[in-house]
């Protein structure tokens, strides 16, 4: 008889035939994350809110409670969930009715209305699933983290160029009826006359590529937009050092968005030098009013990746290049594209944009553990008690109310001064070991909510960054649960602020014409 350890190891390491369905799921999920990332942005972003880069991906702040609030007042259009409150306020009165449908034995998809301006093109569909779809694929699943699992797989061309900057959101009317909104970001398109092609390939149900309904239709239309503000803005830049600069490219104020587009450009270095940069530092921005008080805002990457690598070719010109093709000695230019959204706030004539650099706590050299010991922990108690902490940038976070129900733990907060990129609140169980979790979502007044709050789920096991700590009994046991404020990173200001004048709102919406639906070849 061989040693039992050897036998177990031999047997457990033997190859097995993986179920085909499983292999398909893995393949499709990776594909969605990578190749089809443009269509998967929203879902990915929802997870990103769990990590440190909370301000970069704030559009991910989606949850059931906000859907309910919004649905009651605005005909089930989920713009608030998308962080697009300004669209929510102005979409109905500025959209045109279309009511063109595509239909097959599984589904009827109707483009009910359409609107646009120089920031966004917005499409509102109604999806009616037929009995055959439900019986074959089951009811559409919902999760706090992922929303409704229904997705139109499309690719979108504007003047024959594919655009990847788009987000989708869904509201449920009934088990068979959904409102599906797709918002295309055209902030960086300077052309006045646009030809749009929405090539709808499939409808995917329950995140399973085998549950797909073939659509193969192309929705096409023309849109004329006012590009005056875009073409008149003079870019501003701040040189950080000989290798780094920040550029503000555009500032817009339309019916659907008050926005600023920015770039961080890193150059004059080889790829090898670039790889050696500290990966735990990243740049971000804070927006304040003219008196320096932080205002509500959200920062997004300007498209799915937001990051582009260029390599200097033999002619001395920089060419967009895939990361995997870059050699260590190549001279590179690395560009990160950001969009800042300012929501529905008024009196935004003059604002300041402050570039900051954030360094996350390092768990390899005990920094994270040391900070964990240093941060002040409070017992979780429901009620209107006040707690406060000071950010690395000197501002104050103040909690003034905590509500707990069977599904969520919700903290209501206010900010004063400048707050860096720290996680506003983390939770732990005080059990003698290091553990903590991040919230399910963060809601910001004027951006994706009507109040500031941080929400933890009691039903999903939260995770926290690299360590993937979890609190497993949060649903039934809040004993020894504690919270801390402003943990996870430190930020510092790295350049003089940009002073920006927000233009008067351009109320001219897109002239849309020549809408047609064609077969997709």
């Amino acid at each position, binding site marked *: 008889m061989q040693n*039992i350890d050897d036998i177990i190891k031999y047997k457990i390491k033997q190859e097995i035939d993986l*179920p085909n369905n499983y292999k398909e799921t893995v393949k499709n*999920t990776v594909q969605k994350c*990578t190749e089809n990332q443009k269509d998967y942005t929203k879902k*990915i972003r929802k997870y990103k809110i769990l990590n440190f880069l909370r301000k970069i991906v704030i559009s991910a702040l989606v949850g059931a409670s906000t859907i309910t609030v919004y649905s009651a007042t605005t005909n089930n259009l989920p713009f608030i969930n998308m962080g697009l409150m300004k669209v929510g306020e102005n979409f109905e009165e500025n959209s045109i009715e279309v009511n063109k449908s595509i239909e097959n034995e599984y589904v009827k998809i109707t483009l009910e209305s359409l609107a646009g301006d120089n920031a966004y093109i917005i499409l509102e569909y109604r999806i009616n699933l037929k009995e055959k779809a439900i019986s074959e694929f089951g009811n559409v699943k919902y999760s706090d983290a992922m929303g409704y699992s229904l997705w139109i797989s499309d690719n979108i061309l504007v003047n024959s160029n594919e655009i990847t900057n788009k987000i989708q959101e869904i509201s449920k009317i009934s088990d068979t009826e959904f409102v599906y909104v797709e918002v295309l970001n055209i902030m960086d398109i300077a052309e006045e006359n646009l030809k749009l092609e929405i090539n709808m390939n499939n409808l995917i149900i329950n995140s399973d590529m085998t549950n797909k309904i073939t659509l193969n239709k192309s929705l096409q239309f023309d849109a004329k937009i006012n590009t005056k503000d875009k073409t008149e803005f003079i870019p501003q830049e701040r040189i950080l050092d000989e290798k780094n600069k920040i550029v503000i490219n555009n500032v817009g104020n339309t019916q659907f968005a008050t926005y600023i587009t920015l770039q961080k450009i890193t150059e004059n270095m080889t790829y090898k030098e670039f790889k050696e940069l500290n990966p735990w530092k990243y740049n971000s921005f804070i927006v304040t009013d003219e008196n320096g008080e932080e205002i509500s805002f959200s920062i997004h990457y300007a498209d799915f990746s937001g990051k582009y690598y260029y390599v200097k070719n033999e002619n001395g010109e920089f060419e967009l290049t895939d990361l995997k093709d870059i050699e260590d000695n190549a001279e590179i230019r690395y560009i990160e594209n950001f969009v800042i959204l300012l929501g529905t706030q008024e009196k935004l004539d003059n604002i300041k944009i402050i570039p900051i650099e954030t360094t996350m706590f390092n768990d390899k050299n005990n920094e994270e553990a040391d900070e964990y010991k240093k941060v002040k922990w409070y017992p979780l108690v429901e009620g209107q008690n006040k707690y406060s902490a000071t950010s690395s940038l000197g501002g104050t976070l103040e909690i003034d109310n905590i509500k707990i129900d069977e599904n969520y733990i919700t903290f209501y907060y206010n900010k004063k001064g400048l707050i860096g990129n720290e996680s506003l609140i983390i939770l732990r169980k005080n059990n003698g*070991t290091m553990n903590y979790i991040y919230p399910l979502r963060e809601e910001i007044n004027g951006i994706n909510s009507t109040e500031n709050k941080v929400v933890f789920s009691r039903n999903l096991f939260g995770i926290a960054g690299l360590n993937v700590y979890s609190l497993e009994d949060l649903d039934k046991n809040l004993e020894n649960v504690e919270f801390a404020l402003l943990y996870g990173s430190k930020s510092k200001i790295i350049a003089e602020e940009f002073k920006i004048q927000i233009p008067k709102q351009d109320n001219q919406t897109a002239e849309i014409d020549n809408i047609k639906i064609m077969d997709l070849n």
Partner: protein
Amino acid sequence: MEELVKKAKKGDNEAFTQLIMNLQTDLYKIAKAKINDEDDINEAVQETIIKAYCSIKKLKDEKYFKTWIIRILINECNNIYKKKRQSKTEEYNENTVNQAELDTINTKINNLDFYILIKNLNEDEKMAVILFYLEEFSTKDIGKILKVSENTIRTRLSRARKKLKKMFDGGNIDAKYR
């Protein structure tokens, strides 16, 4: 693997794809040790891949990639297990392998050893065995991953060894799997 992880951290999608493809069998085995239903396994692994893709840049040390993604997977499995338990829509039997399920996944002879192993151990033992023998983690690391003490892991492994030894010696294998 570390080189692939480095590339994936820098945004190389091909490297990420390769990493997942290399690990897909291990991820399946680990999920299978925790939850039985094939749809649930798919869901757990799907969520794991998404979370890994979104946060791989924060992985500070490439050599811990495997530990890290397994921890995410175990959390996902726990989520699903817990939801199922709450809803009581499906009863979980930790110690049985459903024959119909085996049939549907077209089990071949070389799958049997794996299923025999997980059939005959309880959940705690299965996970300890998978992580120790398949992933070759130390008992200390397994303790960290499962959030129990190293001694507990040793006990579980010892129990599992006894059971499996008995089984491999021919004393306790369900006839249909022999």
